[in-house]
């Protein structure tokens, strides 16, 4: 587990913006008819979400990501999860990655709670056997009891959140990616959720947590990086968080 690492070199990531209209083939064909560039994506707007980012993390690093809305935090987490490909530069991750970015991942409202737990576990990379072994523990943690045999669409919002949280956090990860501290549910459940997340964080070699909550970052992180318009500050010690915020 000591060889867990993250390494980004000159990472740039751009979003092509496909206008709502351009999504229609009709318009695309019309463009060809009047002599536009065939199949060319150039000239279309692109949003640069990350530019020239360098980042080296090793086992034991707990990195907090701060930055204004739209500064590229979520995009970086998605890139680290392997979902977004870099446009330039490289991302290298050693270790099993768990991305807790969007809790509703893979939640199918028409399926039962149990089916959703299985599905979520399989997506996270567990084998069918591993999922079955953890099923009882997840079910118990969710506290949903008999509701687990009912379709998720019959749940209240908080119950859905409990299920999603219980299923999503039933993984083991060397690299844990989190968009906001995701403890959810009512007061009682939140306490449990905090404890469970902490355990997950302790076991993980590396944590990358994006949050707007400075106190939270101080609590769980030992390093911090600030994003601004897709450009990242150098990684600094969490003690210098105030200076970073002021800069």
């Amino acid at each position: 587990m000591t060889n867990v690492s993250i390494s980004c070199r000159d990472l740039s990531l751009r979003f092509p913006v496909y206008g709502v209209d351009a999504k229609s083939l009709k318009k695309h064909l019309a463009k060809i008819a009047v002599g536009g560039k065939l199949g060319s994506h150039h000239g279309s707007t692109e949003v640069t979400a990350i530019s020239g980012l360098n980042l080296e993390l090793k086992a034991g690093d707990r990195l907090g990501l701060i930055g204004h809305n739209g500064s590229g935090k979520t995009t970086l987490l998605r890139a680290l999860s392997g979902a977004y490909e870099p446009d330039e530069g490289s991302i290298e991750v050693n270790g099993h990655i768990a991305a807790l970015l969007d809790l509703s991942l893979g939640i199918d409202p028409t399926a039962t709670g149990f089916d959703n737990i299985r599905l979520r576990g399989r997506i996270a990379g567990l084998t069918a056997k591993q999922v079955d072994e953890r099923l009882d523990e997840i079910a118990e943690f969710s506290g949903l009891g008999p509701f687990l045999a009912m379709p998720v669409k019959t749940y209240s919002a908080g119950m859905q959140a409990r299920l999603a949280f219980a299923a999503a956090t039933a993984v083991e990860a060397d690299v844990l990616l989190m968009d906001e501290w995701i403890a959810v549910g009512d007061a009682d459940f939140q306490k449990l959720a905090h404890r469970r997340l902490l355990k997950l964080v302790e076991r993980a070699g590396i944590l990358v947590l994006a949050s707007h909550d400075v106190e939270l970052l101080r609590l769980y992180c030992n390093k911090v990086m600030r994003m601004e318009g897709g450009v990242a500050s150098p990684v600094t010690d969490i003690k210098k968080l105030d200076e970073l915020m002021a800069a």
Partner: protein
Amino acid sequence: MDTATHMLRTGRRGTLFEAQMALRDLRTSVERIDLARSLAWHDVVSRYRGSILGPLWITLSMGLMILGIGVLWGGLFRVPVHEFVPLVAVGIVFFGFVTTTINEGCDTFVQAAGMLSQTALPMFTFVWRTVLRNLINLGHHVVIVGAVLVWAGLWAGANYPAAALGFIFLVINVAWISMLVAIISARFRDIPQAVASVTQAAAIMTPVYWPPDRIPEKYRWILDFNPFYHLLQAVRAPLIGKAVEPHSYLVLALMALIGWGLVFSLFANTRRRIVHYL
């Protein structure tokens, strides 16, 4: 859990590199075919949760349709019922697989948007999910084929190895078409309607509901130039005691080669972008 996982992602490094990455996506999806299977089963089970008959509902409605068309149109075409019903039964069941796998292909990536944007799962996994889900449903409908073949007395005379070979050709070809429409539909949202019209037209142009030998010699080319005709015949003919024309295999093999070549290069070129289309 294996800690030996390693992920390396880089910017574009030329065509060859993109092809290698696409190939790696394919390889990983095959290594983790179990996941695609779980997703497919999940789809089938959750879609029919709470219903008594499950996918057999569709089997049932197919059965009724076959009975109706078989008896009524058999009279219309003046073909004996024992000959016509098997033709239509095998046709509807297998052509149904072709059309639904292609039509549902349009949703393959669109439906998986959430997963694709926060995991490193191979994209091919979702293509297999669509194909496997339809294979599972076909597994239910095949009951009709069995029953009809027994009833018509064609059961013993059927050439099962040839039918199996034809079925392999069918699946290989339907899979690339399904993936093709998956990629294009992710980018252009009006494609699913277009695909639906094409498959609907194909169902009429292809002798699914009518006997192929009824077409006048001078219009034979309509069949020969219809890829769906060859797809269907390769499976159906051996089951109802007819021979597959050798050139059908040639057409299917060429179609598979060219089709997969085309789709693979399209995938290699769009792989990075698909998640942004969604």
